[in-house]
C-alpha cells in the first residue's frame, strides 16, 4: 500500500515537473492534459460511390442510413395506425378492414414503432452520428463491423416488410407475440407471417449487437485527450447506458425467437401446452407459455429504457444549449441514467400482473417499479431547474423539449397507477394502458427525436430547417397528440378493452363512440402534420438558410469540427483536446455566454467555471 502511495506521489511530481517545463513557469500548467495514449486510428477512406455512400464505413453516413431506414419503417407504422384509427372511429366504413387485417396492423404497428423505428433511430441513427463526434474520435472503433451492422438491420427490415406480401399476411398476434396463439392456426399470419417476424427479430438482434459493441467500445476506449467519462455530454451517457442494456436484454429476445421458431417449424413444445382442438389433441405437450412472457419481458422492459435513456440524454443537452445554462446536477443526471438502467432489469414482471403469477412476486415487482420512479423524477426536476431563470430561446427545438417534459410527466404519472398491482388489475388491457405507454414511450421520445433533428440538421447538412414550418409542426403534433391520448385515459376508466376490432353494441359505446371519432380525426391530423416535417426536411436540404459553424453556439465537440458538415475522419489534422465539460453556458466573467469544450483554461482566466 505504501509503495502504491509513493508511486502516486512520484507520478504527481512527474506531472508537475513535466508541465512546468512545458509552460516555462514555476507553477503548475493549468492547461495540462495527459499525453495521447493511443496511436492515430487507421481508417479506410472510400473512393467510389459505392464505398462512400452505400457500403460505407464512415459512422456518420451509417448514422444517416440508419435514420432514413428507420424513418421509412416509421412511416409504414404511421400509415398502419391511421388504418387502425379508421376502423375504431368509423367502424365498417371501409370494407377492406376486417378483424384479421386489424390485428395484423396492431402487431406490425407495435413492433415497427418500438424496435425498428425508435431503437434503430436512437442507437443506430443518433448513436452512430454523434458518438465519434461527441467523444472526439475519428470514427467508430470497428468501422467495418459497423457497416455490417447497418446492412443486417436493412435485411431485417426487408424481411419484416416481406411479411406483408406472403400468403396469410403478417402476423396478427399482437406485438408481444404471446404463444400459444401466435403460432396456432386461426391467428392471422400464423404461417409465414410469424416466421418472418421471428427471423427479422433475430437478424435485428445480431445486427444490433455488432453496432452496440462498437458504440460501447468507442465510448470506453476511444475518447480524445481530456475527455473523461464525467465530461461527456449526457447524450453520450444516455446512448451508452441504453446500449449496455440492449446488449444484455436482446439475448432474451433472441432466445425466445429461436425457441418459438422451433415450436413453429419443428413442433417442439417449449412454449406450447397441451392443446385440444376440435376434440383432437395437437402434437404439443407440456410447454410453458408463461416462460415466453418472462423471456419476452426480460427483453421488453429494458427495451423501454433503451428507447427512453437516449431520449433523456439528448433532451438534457438540447435544454441546456437552448436555455443557455449548465445542466442542473450533471452528476446526479449521470447516476440517474445508470441507476434507471440497472433497475430496469428488475421490473419486467410488472407487465405480467394478470398472467396468474404469485401475488408475492407481483408485490416485489410493484416495489421495484415504484423505486425506478425516483431517479426518473430526479431527472424531470433537473430539467425544470435547468430551465429555471435560463436565457430560454423559444425555438422549435426548445418547444419540442418542453413538449417532451409535459408528455413524459403525464405518461410517468399514469405509470405509477399501472405499477401497483391492485390498480393495474382492473386497468390492465384497457385503453388506459394504451394511453400510458403511447404518452411515455411513443410521444415523449418522438418529441425528443424531432427536437434532435431540428437541432442537429444544420450539422449534418450545413443548412438550418425552416422555423415557421417547424413551429406549425410542433403545435399540431403536440396538441394533436394530446387530443389523441388524453381521452384514451377516460376510455380506459370506463373499461373499453384494447385490441378489440370493434365495440359493437356494448354499453360502453354510448359515451365511447363520439370520443373514438374525435380521437380518430385527431390522429389523421397529427399524421398529416408529419408531412409538414418531411416537406421541411426536403426543402431545407436544398433551400435552407446556410447554418455556418456552430449556429446554436453550443459547447460540445460535434460543433467544433474544422469542416461543417464534418468529413470522414472528423477532425482534420489534429484531434481536439478537451479541457472542460460540455455545459459552460453563461459563465460569470467569461466574454461570450458559452465556452466550448476545447477552450483552454488560460484562454478564459476570468471565467468562474465549475471544476469538472
Amino acid at each position, binding site marked *: *500500500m505504501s509503495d*502504491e502511495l509513493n*508511486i*502516486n506521489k512520484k*507520478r504527481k511530481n512527474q506531472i508537475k515537473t513535466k508541465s512546468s517545463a512545458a509552460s516555462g513557469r514555476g507553477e503548475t500548467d493549468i492547461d495540462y*492534459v*495527459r*499525453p*495521447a*495514449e*493511443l*496511436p492515430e486510428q*487507421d481508417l*479506410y477512406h472510400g473512393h467510389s460511390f459505392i464505398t462512400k455512400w452505400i457500403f460505407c464505413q464512415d459512422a456518420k453516413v451509417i448514422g444517416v442510413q440508419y435514420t432514413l431506414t428507420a424513418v421509412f419503417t416509421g412511416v409504414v407504422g404511421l400509415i398502419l395506425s391511421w388504418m387502425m384509427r379508421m376502423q375504431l372511429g368509423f367502424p365498417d366504413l371501409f370494407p377492406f378492414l376486417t378483424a384479421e387485417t386489424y390485428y395484423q396492423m396492431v402487431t406490425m404497428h407495435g413492433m415497427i414503432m418500438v424496435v425498428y423505428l425508435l431503437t434503430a433511430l436512437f442507437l443506430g441513427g443518433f448513436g452512430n452520428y454523434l458518438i465519434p463526434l461527441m467523444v472526439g474520435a475519428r470514427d467508430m*472503433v*470497428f468501422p*467495418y*463491423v459497423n457497416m455490417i451492422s447497418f446492412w443486417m438491420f436493412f435485411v431485417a427490415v426487408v424481411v419484416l416488410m416481406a411479411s406483408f406480401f406472403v400468403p396469410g399476411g403478417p402476423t396478427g398476434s399482437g406485438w408481444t407475440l404471446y404463444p400459444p396463439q401466435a403460432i396456432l392456426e386461426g391467428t392471422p399470419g400464423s404461417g409465414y407471417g410469424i416466421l418472418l417476424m421471428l427471423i427479422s427479430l433475430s437478424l435485428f438482434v445480431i445486427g444490433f*449487437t455488432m453496432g*452496440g*459493441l*462498437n458504440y*460501447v*467500445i468507442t465510448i*470506453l*476506449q*476511444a*475518447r*480524445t485527450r*481530456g*475527455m*473523461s*467519462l*464525467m*465530461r461527456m455530454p449526457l447524450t453520450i451517457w444516455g446512448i451508452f447506458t441504453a446500449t449496455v442494456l440492449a*446488449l*444484455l436484454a*436482446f*439475448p*432474451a429476445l*433472441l*432466445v*425466445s425467437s*429461436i*425457441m418459438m421458431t*422451433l415450436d413453429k417449424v*419443428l*413442433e*417442439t*413444445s*417449449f412454449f406450447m401446452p397441451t392443446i385440444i382442438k376440435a376434440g383432437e389433441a395437437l*402434437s404439443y*405437450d*407440456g*410447454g*410453458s407459455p408463461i*416462460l415466453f412472457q418472462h*423471456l419476452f419481458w*426480460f427483453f421488453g422492459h429494458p427495451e423501454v429504457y433503451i428507447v427512453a435513456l437516449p431520449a433523456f440524454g439528448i433532451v438534457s443537452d438540447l435544454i441546456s444549449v437552448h436555455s443557455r445554462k449548465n445542466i442542473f446536477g450533471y452528476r446526479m443526471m449521470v447516476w440517474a441514467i445508470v441507476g434507471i438502467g440497472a433497475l430496469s432489469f428488475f421490473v419486467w414482471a410488472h407487465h405480467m400482473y394478470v398472467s396468474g403469477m404469485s401475488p408475492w412476486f407481483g408485490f416485489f415487482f410493484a416495489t421495484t417499479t415504484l423505486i425506478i420512479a425516483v431517479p426518473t423524477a430526479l431527472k424531470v426536476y433537473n430539467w425544470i431547474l435547468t430551465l429555471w431563470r435560463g436565457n430560454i430561446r423559444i425555438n422549435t427545438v426548445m418547444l419540442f423539449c418542453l413538449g417532451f417534459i409535459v408528455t413524459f410527466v403525464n405518461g410517468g404519472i399514469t405509470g405509477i397507477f399501472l405499477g401497483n398491482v391492485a390498480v393495474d388489475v382492473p386497468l390492465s388491457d384497457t385503453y388506459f394502458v394504451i394511453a400510458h405507454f403511447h404518452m411515455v414511450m411513443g410521444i415523449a421520445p418522438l418529441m425528443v427525436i424531432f427536437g434532435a433533428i431540428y437541432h442537429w440538421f444544420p450539422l449534418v447538412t450545413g443548412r438550418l430547417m425552416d422555423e415557421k414550418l417547424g413551429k406549425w409542426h410542433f403545435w399540431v403534433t403536440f396538441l394533436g397528440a394530446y387530443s389523441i391520448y388524453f381521452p384514451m385515459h377516460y376510455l380506459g376508466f370506463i373499461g373499453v378493452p384494447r385490441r378489440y376490432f370493434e365495440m359493437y353494441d356494448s354499453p360502453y359505446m354510448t359515451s365511447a363512440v363520439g370520443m373514438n371519432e374525435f380521437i380518430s380525426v385527431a390522429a389523421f391530423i397529427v399524421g398529416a402534420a408529419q408531412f409538414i416535417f418531411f416537406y421541411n426536411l426536403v426543402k431545407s436540404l436544398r433551400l435552407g438558410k446556410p447554418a455556418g459553424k456552430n449556429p446554436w453556439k453550443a459547447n460540445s465537440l460535434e460543433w467544433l469540427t474544422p469542416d461543417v458538415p464534418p468529413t470522414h475522419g472528423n477532425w482534420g489534422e489534429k484531434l481536439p483536446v*478537451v479541457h472542460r465539460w460540455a455545459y459552460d453556458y453563461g459563465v460569470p466573467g467569461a466574454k461570450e455566454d458559452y465556452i466550448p469544450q476545447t477552450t483552454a483554461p488560460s484562454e478564459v482566466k476570468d471565467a468562474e467555471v465549475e471544476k469538472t
Partner: protein
Amino acid sequence: MSDLNLDKLPGGFKGMSEDIGSDQTTFKGVNWGKAMMWIFLLSDTFVFSCFLVAYMKVRASVVEPWPYPSEVFALEMMGVPVPLLLIAIMTFVLITSSGTMALAVKYGYEKNRKMCGWFVLLTAIGGLTFVGMQAFEWSKLIFHDGVRPWANPFGAEQFGAFFFMITGFHGTHVSIGVIFLFIFARKVFRGDFDTGRRGYFTTMKSDYVAIEILGLYWHFVDLVWVFIFAFFYLW
C-alpha cells in the same frame, strides 16, 4: 500506446477509480478488439443463461418424467453400457484444446510464428474432433434411439428439444471458432501477424493480439460447455 507506461499506473482500488476517472481509455492498455470480445462474451453469456434458465424452468415443471441422462448418454463397451463415456472424451478434448489455445497465445506474444501456428492448428483440430463427436452423438440419438426434437421414447418431449437446441447452439459456436482457427492458422503461417498485413475485408493491420482475442472466445466456448455438461449430463 505511445506515452502510456502501464507499470507506472497505480494498482488496486485506487488505480481502478483513477482509470475510470481518466480521459481517453477506461481500461488502460486494453486493445479495442480485446475489450470488444469481452463485452460480446458478456452478451453471449446472457444468451446461454437464457437457454439454460428456460431449460431448468421447463424441466422443473413438466409432468412427464425426465429421461435419465446416464442411461440415455451411455455407450456400449464390450457389452457393458458405460454412462457418459463419449461425453467424458468430448469434454476432455475440448478442455485440452483450451490448453493448446493458451500456448498459442503465449507463442504469439513471443512472436514465435511456427509454434504459434502449430498450436492454433492443433486447437482447430481439437475443436473439429469435438464437433465430429457431437455429430456422432446426435446421430446415435436420432437414428439409434429415436430421439426427436418433438418426441422421444424416454419421457418428457422437451428433453430432445432442449438437448438439440442447446448443444446445437453451442456446437455452432464451436464450429464458427474452428473456422476462424483454421483461417488464423493460415494467417499465422503466412506471417500476417509479423508483417502487419492488412485484412482482406476489414483493411486493418493484423496483430498477434488477434490470437488472444480468438483465444478469449475459445475459452468462453469451453466454459459454456462445462455448464452445459453439468446441467444436462450430470443433473
